[in-house]
């Protein structure tokens, strides 16, 4: 009996797929299992094809698997679209009154048809149509030879606010779906859902959730945003937590206002963050430069989706790397981070606030739809014991000890000029969008322009020293070295797992810090690798260009995908095999 499986549900938007699936995931995580989930949906509220899938395993799951073992088909289209993903021995759970399938065809393909009268069962208890998902989950739990007790407890907990009737109805339909399978589809279990012993309760969360937690942990007190998929959930999560966490969340009139408000809040001394996707980021660009020249700290989340313009609003891609690196006119120092999973997202968000404040620069965090909306199981985050320290900011005592008038843009060795914040006597200054002298007054002389510009750029030297060693996975030496950044991390790691089972060993350099670019390490890896494969979710090989620019080397092979879907492990496996056999 297998313990790792992928369960998928598909139907039209408005079928209430998400809520019930979240509960199935929660059940698996509470039972001590690991999960990774993934959803696809068009930019519509009703109609259109929606899917949601989750891979469940006693071992950590790094990415969604493309191979589906259990498919809940709420309509016929779901079967048609996803038949190719079904494994040998897979089961389709469907309502024979709604979805008409030819038994002979599926028998030939070794796929079990698990007909359950979803609609009829819901009708029997007088529930709404969306409860069909719950019947299907009941049926799934029966197929996985697990008990219902835990799921019933979860229903009671999750629907507590909705009252006894709703709880009762849900429990009822789940039981009926479960009983129906036990009675009509009695068979040996192919996969089992068994409770695992775990040290502590795990979480299941998206990168957007992890970024929200990271922001709170870092002392972020102001978050502004304008809703835009796939960044919106950070706005919603932080808004839900605002009074509990003591954070002011502002849904502003547009993205230009968003970034200007955050800059104002940051200038006034509050750790501030904004979130958007590429389109909204485009609107923010001029103000990003304002953060650069006024040397105001700011953390910016750009959760990418394919573009240009509206592009594919609910799909994924990695096309904004060069854009965020170069956005806004002329040069100014910035930092670009790209976490590869929820743990990195939490850690890097915390560090983003530290770096922004220490160097008075904007720090951009790149996520994408795939990471921002996929839940992964992980251990609870540890805050550690250290208090958050304010950096590069004068205390009132230090201002008092100044022997001359305070200079906001003092020409210092490191390029960092300690700031003061409004309200502090003696620290009065002008934060100036115009090129300025050391006090902040407008100055267009050749000497001062050169000195201030050089001072700002100088900060990159110190920042570069803060870039940690980028993570390397797999054996030290391998016939093929894969290089990727950001969200492809989990997929590559999952692919490596599959390859290892087939005795194919590759190694993998994952870049989570894109700018300043980890030049020395990448150069070393490129020089020592026998053969390199670059993998990116864009058409221009944007990281490839950076590698060329900074290391004067070129990856041997590239694997680019820009169809809006993330890489799937099996695609990476196939590509690696193709390269290694050539």
């Amino acid at each position: 009996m297998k313990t790792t499986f992928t369960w998928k549900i598909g139907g039209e938007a408005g079928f209430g797929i998400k809520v019930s699936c979240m509960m199935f995931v929660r059940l698996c995580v509470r039972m001590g299992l690991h999960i990774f989930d993934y959803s696809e949906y068009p930019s519509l509220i009703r109609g259109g094809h929606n899917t949601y899938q989750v891979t469940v395993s006693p071992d950590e799951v790094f990415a969604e698997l493309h191979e589906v073992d259990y498919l809940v088909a709420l309509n016929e289209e779901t079967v048609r679209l996803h038949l190719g993903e079904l494994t040998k021995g897979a089961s389709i759970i469907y309502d024979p009154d709604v979805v008409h399938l030819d038994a002979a065809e599926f028998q030939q393909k070794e796929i079990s048809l698990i007909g359950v009268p979803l609609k009829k069962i819901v009708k029997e208890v007088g529930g709404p149509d969306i409860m069909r998902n719950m019947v299907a989950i009941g049926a799934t739990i029966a197929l996985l030879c697990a008990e219902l007790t835990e799921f019933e407890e979860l229903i009671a907990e999750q629907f507590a606010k909705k009252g006894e009737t709703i709880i009762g109805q849900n429990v009822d339909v789940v039981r009926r779906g479960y009983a129906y399978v036990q009675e009509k589809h009695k068979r040996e279990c192919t996969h089992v859902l068994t409770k695992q012993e775990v040290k502590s309760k795990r979480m299941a969360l998206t990168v957007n959730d992890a970024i929200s937690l990271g922001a709170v942990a870092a002392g972020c007190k102001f978050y502004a945003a304008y809703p835009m998929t796939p960044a919106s959930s950070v706005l919603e999560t932080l808004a839900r937590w605002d009074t509990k966490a003591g954070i002011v969340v502002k849904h502003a009139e547009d993205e230009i206002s968003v970034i200007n408000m955050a800059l104002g809040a940051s200038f006034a001394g509050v750790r501030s963050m904004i979130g958007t996707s590429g389109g909204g980021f485009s609107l923010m660009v001029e103000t990003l430069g304002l953060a650069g020249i006024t040397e105001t700290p700011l953390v910016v989340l750009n959760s990418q989706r394919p573009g240009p313009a509206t592009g594919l609003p609910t799909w994924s891609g990695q096309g904004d790397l060069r854009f965020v690196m170069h956005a806004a006119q002329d040069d100014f120092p910035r930092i670009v981070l790209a976490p590869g999973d929820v743990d990195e997202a939490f850690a890097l968000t915390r560090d983003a606030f530290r770096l922004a404040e220490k160097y008075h620069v904007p720090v951009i965090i790149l996520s994408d739809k795939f990471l921002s909306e996929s839940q992964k199981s992980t251990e609870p985050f540890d805050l550690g014991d250290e208090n958050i320290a304010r950096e590069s900011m004068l205390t009132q005592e230090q201002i008092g000890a100044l022997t001359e008038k305070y200079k906001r843009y003092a020409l210092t060795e490191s390029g960092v000029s300690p700031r003061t914040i409004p309200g502090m006597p003696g620290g009065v200054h002008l934060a100036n969008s115009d090129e300025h002298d050391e006090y902040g007054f407008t100055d267009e002389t050749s000497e001062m322009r050169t000195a201030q510009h050089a001072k700002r750029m100088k900060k990159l030297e110190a920042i570069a020293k803060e870039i940690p060693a980028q993570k390397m996975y797999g054996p030290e030496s391998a016939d093929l070295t894969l290089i990727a950044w950001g969200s492809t991390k989990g997929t590559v790691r999952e692919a490596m797992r599959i390859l290892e089972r087939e005795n194919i060993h590759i190694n993998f350099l994952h870049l989570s810090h894109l700018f300043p670019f980890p030049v020395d390490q990448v150069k070393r890896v490129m020089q020592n690798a026998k053969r390199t494969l670059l993998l990116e979710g864009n058409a221009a090989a944007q990281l490839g260009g950076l590698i060329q620019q900074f290391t004067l080397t070129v990856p041997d092979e590239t694997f680019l995908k820009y169809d809006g879907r993330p890489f799937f492990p099996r695609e990476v496996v196939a590509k690696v095999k193709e390269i290694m056999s050539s």
Partner: protein
Amino acid sequence: MSEPEQPKHRASDFNTSTFPTWCPGCGDFGIWAALKNALVELGREPHDTVVVYGIGCSGNMANNVNTYAFHGLHGRPVPVAEGIKMANHGLTVIVIAGDGDGYGEGLGHFLHAVRGNADITYIVHNNQVYGLTTGQTSPTSDKGYKSKSTPHGVIEEPINPISLALGASGTFVARGYAGDIKHLTSLIVQGVQHKGFSLIDVFQPCVTFNKINTHLWFQKMTVKLEEMGHDPSNREAAIQQAFRRDQLPIGLYYKEDRPAYHEQLSQIAETPLVEHPLEPLTFDELQKEFM
């Protein structure tokens, strides 16, 4: 307004080491003087006041007022000021912008700040022309106004900032004239004291590029609302005054008491946000949501 018996500061305390670069006779000098006078009258300190400036001749005042200052982008000073106020509502936050700045690029921000009743004082230098870019039409230029960018005359009707603010539920709507510093000072003082968004649109003659809306013209055209017995609590009357063309009323059009934006945020009811400790108030409880 009654002045404190012994003002803490003189207007010159709010000067910086640099002198304005405006043309001799520019209306901006009058606004600059009124702003400094108002800060003195209000008993404000350079360190407890932030002035946010847009881009234009008006924005260049950033170099000339000794308070904490943020010189931002064209059209964007209002959201910066809103952010500052949310971060530290103990500060007095004033915005200096121009008509291109405030009613062109920044029109959206202006109306949204008005409806949110953000507690900032918005002083718009309205000279009905683009001065710093050397004489193109502005959103407040009169229909038919000929400029470098509209040689055949402006086709659009001018923006009416007073009626827009009233229409967006503004709680303090006023207009001043740069040539009457005493009157303008009083409006700025009232605007800063008002809890909520205060619009002070200021007629500001551009002596170099606007040969129509001159000092002489304004002196002829302006009338004082307070001398007309206008009741600033009467919105309908304010709207009527806002649409007058025969004369240009200056003074307080409308005032209403309504909670300011920051006063409706329970997170900062006790202490300004900037004084909150950086350590999260709660963390484990938030994490539990994902378990």
